[in-house]
C-alpha cells in the first residue's frame, strides 16, 4: 500500500454544539478510490464539509491530513490549493457571477498556488471546451450565471467539470450521482474514471450501488451515526444493497 493521500484520524465535529462526527478514522492511499455509504443524516456530508473547511463545522478533536500535511487549520481556499476538491451534494447558485469568469478565477488561483503563469484566454477556452465536451455539457450552460437555473443533473455535471479543470489530488464527491439520469451517470462516471491516476485519490459518497458498477472502488466504508462502522471491498456495497443498513446498526459500539 502506498502512502496515504488522505488520512482522517479520530475526527470529531460539532455543528451548532451538536456532535455529528464521533471519531471518524479513514485512510485513502494515493491512487485509490474509496466509497462511503450510509443512511440519510448519518453525517456523510458533514464529513465532506469538515474536510473542505466550511465555517460552522467545529472540529473538536482529531485531524485531517492531506498528502502528509494537516489541513484543519487552513482556510478553504488553502485546502483547495493543497489539492483538495469537494463536489457538493447541493452546489450553490450564485447569480451575477458568470460561470466562465468563475472557472477562469478558480483555474488561475490554482495555477498561481502552483507557481504557474495565468492561462491565456485561448488556452482557457480550449481547456473548458475540451472538458465540457467530454461531459456532454452544452455551451449555453456555460454562458449562464454559476449554477443558476441549472437542473439537478446539470449542476452535478458542472461540479465534475470543475473537478476535471482543477486537477485536484484528492476528490471528495458527495452524491454526485444523485440527480443524474442513466445516460448522464455513464458519461459522468467515464469522466471520473478518466481522472483516475496514481497521484490522485477519490472519496465517493453515494446511496446507490449502481454508481459503483461504473466507478469501481478499491474500498467501501459504511457510515453510521457519525462513524465508519464497517469497511470492505466492493462486494460490501452489494451486500448493503441486499440487506440494508440495519445489519450494521450499533456495530461501532
Amino acid at each position: 500500500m502506498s502512502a496515504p493521500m488522505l488520512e482522517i484520524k479520530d475526527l470529531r465535529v460539532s455543528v451548532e454544539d451538536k456532535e455529528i462526527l464521533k471519531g471518524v478514522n479513514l485512510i485513502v492511499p494515493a491512487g485509490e478510490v474509496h466509497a462511503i455509504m450510509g443512511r440519510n443524516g448519518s453525517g456523510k456530508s458533514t464529513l465532506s464539509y469538515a474536510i473542505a473547511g466550511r465555517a460552522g463545522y467545529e472540529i473538536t478533536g482529531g485531524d485531517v491530513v492531506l498528502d502528509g500535511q494537516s489541513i484543519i487549520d487552513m482556510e478553504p481556499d488553502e485546502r483547495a490549493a493543497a489539492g483538495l476538491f469537494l463536489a457538493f451534494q447541493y452546489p450553490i447558485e450564485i447569480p451575477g457571477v458568470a460561470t466562465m469568469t468563475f472557472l477562469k478565477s478558480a483555474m488561475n488561483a490554482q495555477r498561481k498556488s502552483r507557481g504557474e503563469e495565468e492561462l491565456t484566454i485561448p488556452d482557457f477556452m480550449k481547456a473548458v471546451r475540451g472538458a465540457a465536451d467530454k461531459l456532454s455539457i452544452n455551451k449555453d450552460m456555460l454562458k449562464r450565471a454559476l449554477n443558476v437555473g441549472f437542473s439537478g443533473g446539470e449542476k452535478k455535471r458542472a461540479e465534475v467539470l470543475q473537478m476535471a479543470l482543477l486537477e485536484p489530488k484528492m476528490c471528495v464527491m458527495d452524491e454526485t450521482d444523485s440527480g443524474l439520469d442513466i445516460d448522464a451517470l455513464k458519461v459522468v462516471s467515464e469522466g471520473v474514471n478518466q481522472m483516475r491516476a496514481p497521484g490522485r485519490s477519490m472519496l465517493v459518497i453515494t446511496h446507490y450501488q449502481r454508481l459503483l458498477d461504473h466507478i469501481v472502488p478499491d474500498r467501501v466504508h459504511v457510515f453510521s451515526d457519525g462513524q465508519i462502522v464497517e469497511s470492505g471491498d466492493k462486494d460490501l456495497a452489494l451486500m448493503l444493497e441486499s440487506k440494508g443498513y440495519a445489519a450494521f446498526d450499533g456495530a461501532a459500539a
Partner: protein
Amino acid sequence: MKFSANNATSAEKQLLEQLDGMKDSTALKILQRFGLPSRRVEAYHYTDLKALMSHVPPLAKSDDLTDSDLGAAGEFDLKDAIKIPVRNGFFGKVSNLAEGFEISENSGSALTERKDMIVALNRALVNNSLNIKISGAPSEILHIDWQIPGSAAHSAGCVEIELEKGAKAVIIETISGSDEAHLGNFGSRIILGEGAEITHILVDVSSRKTTRLQTIEYEIGQNAKMHNLLINSGAKLSRTQIFTNFNGEGAFGDFNGLNLVDEGQHCDITLDTIHKVPNTISTQKFKAVVRNRAKAIFQGRILVESIAQKTDAKMMIQGLMLSEGAQILSKPELEIFADDVQCGHGSTCGELDEDSLFYLMSRGIRRDKATSMLIRAFAEELLEPIKDEQLNGQLSGILDEWLEGKAKV
C-alpha cells in the same frame, strides 16, 4: 429651541454671511428662520445637515479661471464623449459642439423653487446656468464634467437639459475634485418632451473630504422614457435628491443607484416621485454596499395622485453590509390616492452570503477575491444595462477601485 443667530452653528454663520446680499433671498430667509435642516425635519431625519456640516468654505470665484483650466479633463475622462467642463460651478465658453445639441446660458438656477434648503442654496448661489437643448438622436455621449479643483471652496452650479419631442440622448454627469473640504451644490433639471428618451448617469468620484449636495429634477412627458443610474463612491457627506414628475401618459422612469460607502462616509439618496397622470410606470432599484464604519441612506417617496390610475410603481432597496460598523438606513414611503394602481416596495439588507463565499473559496479562490466577486455580482444588475462598452468599462472601473480599496480616502 427656536433658531436664532445666537445659537447658529459655525457652518450656519458662514452660510448666513455668504448669502447676505444675494439677489435670491429665499435661502437666507429660510436659514435665518430655521437654520440648516436637522433630524427634526422629516426629509432630513437621517441626514442632519445641522449636525453633519461643520464648516462652509469660502465661496468659489470665477476670476482665476483660465480657458485652459476649463479645457482640462476631470478625473473621469470619457474619451469619445462631448465634454462640458465645469470648474467650481462655472462653465467655460461652450459653443455648439455637435449636431443635435444647442447650448445657451440662462441667468440663475434652473431648479424649481421648493421648500428645501439645498434647492434654495442652489437658487441663491448660481448666477448662470447652462441650457442644453437636444433634438434628434446624437450618437455622442454628452459628458458634464463637474470639477472642484484647488483649495476648499463652496461652489454651486446648474444645468438644464431639454430633450425635444422624440429626441434620444445619453448624458453623464461626473463630480471629481481635489482632496479638500469642498462644499459643492449641483443641480440638474431634465425635461423630456413627448416620446423622448434619456439615459442619465451621475457619478460621484469626489474626494472623501468633500460635501456634495445634489438635486436632480426630472419632468417626464407623454410616452417619454427616462433611465437613470447613480454611482456614488466619493464624498465624505453627500445628499443626492431626485425629484420626479410623471407629467404625460405613457411616461416611464427607471431609477437605479449604487451607493458604495466606506469608512467615515455618509451618503444619502433621497427620491421624491410624483405620478400626476394615468398610465405611467416607475421602477426604482437602489443598492448599497457599506464597508467599515459608514452610513448609506435611502429614502424614497412615491406619490400617486388621485387621477393617476393604472400607475405601476415599484421600489426595491438592497443593502450589503461588509463590516460590523456599517449602517444602511432606508425609508420607503408610498402615498397612494388612486385606487387602480400597482405599487410595491421591498427592502433586503444583509451580509455576504456565507455559503456562496465558501463555495468560491472551496475552488481555491482567496477570500478577498471571492468577496469582490460576490459584491460585483450584487452590483452587476445595475451596470449590465449600460451597453456602451467604454462607458460600462469605466463605470465598472469605479467599482473595481472601490473593491480594491483604492478609492481616495
